[in-house]
């Protein structure tokens, strides 16, 4: 996956094989590590001049096409390499401490980056392994059989029994203006939106969050209105079971309805 995994892809010392596309690399460390590992270079003794030349040459062709932020990241590394190269040319004490080697910090970063590339391979392995386990419902199978349409044998009494279950009044929430009303149009709009996303919507969902009778009544009237327009079907398996609203054939707003009522609001 990552280029650093391809250690040994080109072990010869020529610099020709490094016509690589930057797209393959996550960033400057990735590219640098590739240049080092693919040439079997000892990471603790990096020939900075040669690597810098290869690094800069790889950049030259593609820099202009790169997004500015990404280009900056590569240029910053190029500057670091050039600085290290210059420092190496300065006279140094006879027995230089490794800590004083201008390359030390870069090597530390490269080794750390390489360590995390190893972790990436572990994660990829785990991801692939997890992908071989399937949970319930993974296989899509046949299209679900259409739910048999149920005639609207639902009485107003059934409907209102749902409304009656709502505690009255819900704990007052300060935010609502006391005279706040809800319109049937708002519920029609909500219902159309929900049915635009799902084939069926629980009737409860249209009013339970607000917990007031006004909302339940508006929801009921909205559902009946849309049922009349054949935009939805109302289904209840048995008395007092959940009431479902199923998307009908004519969900699109009928001509003549003010679009302001069906839209969420002006954009």
């Amino acid at each position: 996956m990552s280029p650093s995994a391809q250690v040994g892809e080109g072990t010869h010392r020529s610099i020709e094989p490094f016509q690589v596309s930057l797209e393959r690399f996550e960033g400057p460390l990735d590219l640098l590590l590739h240049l080092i590992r693919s040439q079997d270079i000892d990471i603790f003794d990096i020939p900075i001049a040669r690597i810098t030349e290869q690094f800069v040459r790889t950049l030259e062709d593609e820099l202009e096409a790169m997004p500015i932020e990404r280009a900056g990241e590569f240029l910053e590394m190029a500057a670091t390499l050039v600085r290290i190269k210059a420092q190496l040319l300065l006279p140094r004490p006879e027995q230089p401490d490794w800590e004083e080697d201008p390359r030390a910090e870069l090597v530390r970063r490269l080794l750390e980056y390489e360590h995390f590339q190893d972790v990436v391979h572990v994660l990829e392995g785990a991801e692939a392994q997890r992908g071989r386990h399937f949970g319930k419902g993974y296989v899509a199978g046949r299209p679900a059989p259409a739910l048999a349409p149920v005639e609207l044998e639902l009485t107003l009494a059934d409907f209102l029994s749902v409304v009656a279950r709502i505690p009255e009044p819900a704990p007052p929430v300060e935010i609502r203006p006391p005279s706040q009303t809800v319109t049937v149009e708002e519920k029609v709009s909500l219902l159309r939106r929900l049915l635009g996303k799902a084939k069926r919507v629980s009737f409860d969902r249209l009013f339970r969050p607000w917990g007031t009778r006004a909302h339940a009544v508006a929801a009921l009237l909205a559902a009946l209105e849309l049922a009349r327009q054949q935009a939805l079907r109302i289904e209840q398996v048995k008395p007092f079971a959940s009431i479902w609203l199923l998307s009908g054939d004519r969900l699109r707003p009928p001509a003549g309805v003010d679009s302001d009522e069906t839209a969420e609001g002006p954009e």
Partner: protein
Amino acid sequence: MKVEQIVEATLFASQTPLTADEIARADEVLVAESVVAAIQTLRDEYEGSERAFQIYQLGDGYQVLTRPEYAPYLERFDSVPRAPHLSPAALETLAIIAYRNPIGRIEIEEVRGVSASSVLRTLLDWELVAVVGRGEGLGRPLLYGVTQMFLEHFGLKDLSDLPAPDELPVVLGELQEAMEAEAAVADAEEAGEEVI
């Protein structure tokens, strides 16, 4: 790999009933007859080991379903939905609505600096916010407010339970301390074992 196991894996992973012919697609060596025989073997095994599920024939298809006597447990389970997790963007929008409500979409976007329509849809779906009215301005924009569900989710009696903006640093500090105290206990329990 036994035929029964391939059939079992397929039935388990299926969303809908599968016919014997469809199950046989899992492997070249399978035909409808061997699938039907395997299903019978599996049914007997499930029966013998008192599994909570069984293979049922629905129309011309087969499906693994829990036995009907467990329905009461599963219904109970469904009635306690898992608390929804909210993305950071959703939380931010929710906070704006809770403190400024009722508020329109445009004003939310002015505060956040990015479009709020998709996150608003998510919050409406979770029933954490609702349309509570219409504003006065051009086109009478919809106004949003938080719902009872919002209060329940955060364990609030009413909106006045939310700290006032100038109390926030104090309240957050207390929460932070509580979290750190918990973390310290957890650390102690791990008895110095380092998890990398």
